[in-house]
């Protein structure tokens, strides 16, 4: 026998109260003067024996009543007998992790688990409290047709981001809120929905359950709609949550029923202290013996985050054989954008418990700024498809339309001031295509040309330009384009300072001091990656002719010479940018064109200036079920407050959610995604939270690649007998090996009886007996 509210056992001390009162009362018999005692018996015992007997009976009855009362309050719970009531509080933890989609006798493990859970719910009595938790959170809507159940669900989610969900047909007629905390808004929308409409309710995940009760109908509905999640299961979190729920219950039969494939990877780590003292009924669902190896794509990596349009890069796929047997031959198919022919690579036999890296080529051909790629692994013996797909993306850099102006009239060919620039911007190899579609013109032709088709103008060695041309170039930059200026040996500070759109003043020309590029601003987008790839090569960018620059107030120094003077200065003109170099781009003025770092730097500068103000949109890859804040480039967030929405990949049903924006850290909080694939983050500057609408077509769509969690790949299971090694010693573990019948689980539902009503009844009866004896005694005394 145990006690459910053992704290009340301290109340047993109250049993001493009648004893104390009895003793005090006995000491305080009133004294009565009387003529003689000769007619009484001479011993106290004889004179008071009946009263003492009655007193003792009353004392015993009172003690017994208090004892029964305290025991009743302490809620005795016995595991045997027929007396008492069966009241169970049960939390069913259903493993809906991807590993549960494996098959056994033609049915998935999850279907079998659902069947067992259904049986358990069906055999619960109306007094039993029950809740259903899933190990993998899901944001799939839960559908309701009954308005009362729908309102109950909304009430249960009060205060949490909650959204309504209608079928496509119904949503065409009725607009409903997406995720919102505004209960009034939900109520208003709910009132407009015609009766009988199937309405879905959705939140971030199912861990919202804060209490549990007797609504078994809701659980049946929840069970009927439940499906395997794409997110990895977190059985520990679910069990901890279940234990927390059970602590809310005062019932005697409190247990967690875990129906799971007991995937080992979900149990590793710290022991679940939250399960201390909890009764856990483990129902392992075992798959049929595997006929093949379990292969999984561990990762797909590409050497660069961004590639030039047309570039062919080589990616590496890591394939792991998680099983204890060698795999069969398979195939890896890499899709790289619509319209591109997928690459197919043969996957050789992979030994047991080992991995293999396979290289695959990807040609960057995309009209979008990101090339969305998906690698698919197929093997005839691999029956677990969860981890056979990997999504990744490559940023696409299109050639920048660049007009290089040769400032020295008459200098052509290698003597042209723009020669080395055009050369640097051109195609280097098949794996390093042209950074810019560059055209060289002289100043006369430049004066005649319209600049609308160009993105960047490079002025190389220009000595002088007239006022109209200055205005033309300034307007070109102000329209959001870029201007890169390399002064020549014959350029003068006076002339350049008169242009008006340069980011720095030229103070003096130094022709005898030998300086080299000592430092670059790595935080500047214009030179990002230069140090990474050029390394110490930037120091080889030396010159004996350079101008001493004095940056304007709003200008930014991108690089400095060894004497501390600026080498590159960036400034803004309208929507565009102008970058001024302190030296020339011809070998007659400096050694720069001769150095590989010059090529890298020039290509970066031109790409930066030609990016039309748009920064790189590559966001870090993510894992299914992972929720985190993602830093958004400052330029993208310039329109804040903004409405960020996460949409699933094209081809699937789109889901949009307003995402919180962290103003201080300039980051957007991305919710956990329930499926792998490519998602799109869209921004609507200035929008406010409210009724959801789909993003406008012209909204920037930033792709995010979401992949499966490698945690779910290893399917090794814990033998149920070893499960105790992963639990605190005080956890009462019971395990059932279920095959095709789930009768044992029914027996596990109720394992004891709560005697508190009976004990309190006994207390009342004893109190009644005490009153009766006291009344009879008083009546006799009065007579």
């Amino acid at each position: 026998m145990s006690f459910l509210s053992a704290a009340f056992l301290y109340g047993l001390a109250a049993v001493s109260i009648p004893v104390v009162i009895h003793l005090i009362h006995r000491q305080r018999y009133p004294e009565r003067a009387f003529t003689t005692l000769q007619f009484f018996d001479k011993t106290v015992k004889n004179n008071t024996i009946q009263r003492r007997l009655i007193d003792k009976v009353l004392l015993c009855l009172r003690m017994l009543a208090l004892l029964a009362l305290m025991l009743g309050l302490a809620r005795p719970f016995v595991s045997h007998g027929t007396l008492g009531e069966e009241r169970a509080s049960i939390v069913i933890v259903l493993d809906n992790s991807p590993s549960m989609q494996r098959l056994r006798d033609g049915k998935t493990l999850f279907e079998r688990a659902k069947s067992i859970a259904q049986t358990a719910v069906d055999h619960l009595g109306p007094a039993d409290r029950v809740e259903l938790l899933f190990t993998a959170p899901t944001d799939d809507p839960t559908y309701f047709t009954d308005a009362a159940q729908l309102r109950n669900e909304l009430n249960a989610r009060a205060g949490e981001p909650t959204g309504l969900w209608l079928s496509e047909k119904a949503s065409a007629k009725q607009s409903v809120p997406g995720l919102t905390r505004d209960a009034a808004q939900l109520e208003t929308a709910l009132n407009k929905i015609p009766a009988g409409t199937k309405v879905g309710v959705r939140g971030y995940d199912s861990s919202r359950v804060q209490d549990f009760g007797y609504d078994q109908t809701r659980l049946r509905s929840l069970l009927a709609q439940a499906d395997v999640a794409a997110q990895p299961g977190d059985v520990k979190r679910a069990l901890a949550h279940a234990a927390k729920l059970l602590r809310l219950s005062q019932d005697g039969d409190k247990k967690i029923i875990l129906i799971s494939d007991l995937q080992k990877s979900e149990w590793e780590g710290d022991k679940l202290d939250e399960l201390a003292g909890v009764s856990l009924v483990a129902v392992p669902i075992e798959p049929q013996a595997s006929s093949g190896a379990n292969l999984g794509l561990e990762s797909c990596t590409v050497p660069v985050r961004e590639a030039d349009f047309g570039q062919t890069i080589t990616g590496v796929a890591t394939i792991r054989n998680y099983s204890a047997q060698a795999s069969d031959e398979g195939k890896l198919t890499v899709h790289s954008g619509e319209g591109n022919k997928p690459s197919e690579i043969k996957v050789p036999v992979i030994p047991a418990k080992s991995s293999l890296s396979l290289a695959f080529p990807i040609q960057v051909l995309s009209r979008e700024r990101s090339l969305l790629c998906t690698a698919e692994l197929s093997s005839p013996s691999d029956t677990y498809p969860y981890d056979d797909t990997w999504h990744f993306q490559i940023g696409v850099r299109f050639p920048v339309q660049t007009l290089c102006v040769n400032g020295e009239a008459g200098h052509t060919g290698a003597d042209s001031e723009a020669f080395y620039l055009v050369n640097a911007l051109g195609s280097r190899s098949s794996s390093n295509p042209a950074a810019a579609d560059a055209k060289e013109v002289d100043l006369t032709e430049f004066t005649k040309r319209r600049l609308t088709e160009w993105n960047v103008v490079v002025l190389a060695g220009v000595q002088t330009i007239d006022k109209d041309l200055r205005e033309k170039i300034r307007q070109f930059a102000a329209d959001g384009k870029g201007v890169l200026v390399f002064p020549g040996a014959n350029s003068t500070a006076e002339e350049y300072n008169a242009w008006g759109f340069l980011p720095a003043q030229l103070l003096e020309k130094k022709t005898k001091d030998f300086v080299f590029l000592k430092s670059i601003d790595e935080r500047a987008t214009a030179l990002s990656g230069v140090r990474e790839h050029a390394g110490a090569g930037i120091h080889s960018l030396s010159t004996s002719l350079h101008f001493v620059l004095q940056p304007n107030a709003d200008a930014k120094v991108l690089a400095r010479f060894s004497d501390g003077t600026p080498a590159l200065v960036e400034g803004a003109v309208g929507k565009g940018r102008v970058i001024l170099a302190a030296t020339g781009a011809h070998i007659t003025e400096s050694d720069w064109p001769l150095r590989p770092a010059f090529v890298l730097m020039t290509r970066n500068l031109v790409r930066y200036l030609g990016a039309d103000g748009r920064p790189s949109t590559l966001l870090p890859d993510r894992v299914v079920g992972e929720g985190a804040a993602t830093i958004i480039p400052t330029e993208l967030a310039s329109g804040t407050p903004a409405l960020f929405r996460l949409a699933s990949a094209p081809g699937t049903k789109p889901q949009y959610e307003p995402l919180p924006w962290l103003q201080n850290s300039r980051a957007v909080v991305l919710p956990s995604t329930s499926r792998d694939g490519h998602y799109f983050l869209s921004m609507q500057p200035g929008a406010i939270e409210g009724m959801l609408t789909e993003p406008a077509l012209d909204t920037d769509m930033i792709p995010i690649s979401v992949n499966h969690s490698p945690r779910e790949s290893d399917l090794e299971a814990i033998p149920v007998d070893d499960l105790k090694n992963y639990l605190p010693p005080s956890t009462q573990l019971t395990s059932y090996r279920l095959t095709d019948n789930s009768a044992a689980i029914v027996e596990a539902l109720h394992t004891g009886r709560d005697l508190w009503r009976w004990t309190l009844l006994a207390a009342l009866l004893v109190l009644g007996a005490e009153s009766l004896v006291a009344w009879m005694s008083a009546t006799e005394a009065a007579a």
Partner: protein
Amino acid sequence: MNIVGSRFLDPALLAKLPNLEIAAKKLVKGTFVGYHKSPDFGYSVEFVDHREYAAGDDLRTVDWRVWARKDKYYVKRFEMESQLKATIVLDGSKSMDFGEGKLKKIEYGSYLAATLAYTLIHQNDMAGLVTFDSKVRHYLPPRGSRQHLRMMLHILGQLQPGPATNIPAVCHHLAETIKTRGMIILISDLLDDTDKILTALQHFQHKKHDVIVFHLLDDAELNLPYAELANFRELETSSRLAVDPATFRATYQDRVRAYCTSLREGCLKSNVDYHLIRTSQPIETVLSNYFAFRARRTR
């Protein structure tokens, strides 16, 4: 001058006792002529017998008619009618200082003694008063004057309960002390050894006294009406005993009843008038009934 004990002689009470007399059951000897029979011969109208004249006899008693017939001198003898000398013996022990009603037993006894004394003196008899506890505290020999009555009332008014009682010893002492046969009226709760009390009463009888016992008991002593368990403290000895009256009542009542019965029967055997009086009974009723009973017996 106001007499301390005059409260015990309630005019209203006396008014309710008209024409009541205490008649002596036995022959009583008195100094003065009264209306009670005396063992002596005297000058009453009741002729008893003749005896031969002896020298010294009063010639007025010679029956000359007998001399005329028999030529011998015979004297006529007549009954002597004497005054009653009643001694009221009042128990003044601590056990008498008890009463759950309006009057304590000692007060009730005082009322009773005073009324009896008044009645006796009023009928030209003599009344004396003895108060005692373990020994005699006051002894007022029988007298018939009103002054004497006042003295008796004074003693009653001053009467304080003594520490303990010893009825047999006092009775034996009185039996030896009171030489003249008369009436002994014992007013007491008789809470003492029954056999010894009866023996002492027989001592009175032996001395030819007419003995009347008024056994005074409170209702509480007879019924033990208490409900709560209590520590009962004996008034005279201060000894204590925890008793549950509720459970012991019946036994107690049986024992008291047996005690009274044994006293009654003992008195009956000794030709002592025993009369149990509850202090809840009106004194006038008690006395009326008793006087009537006494009168019937005397006839």
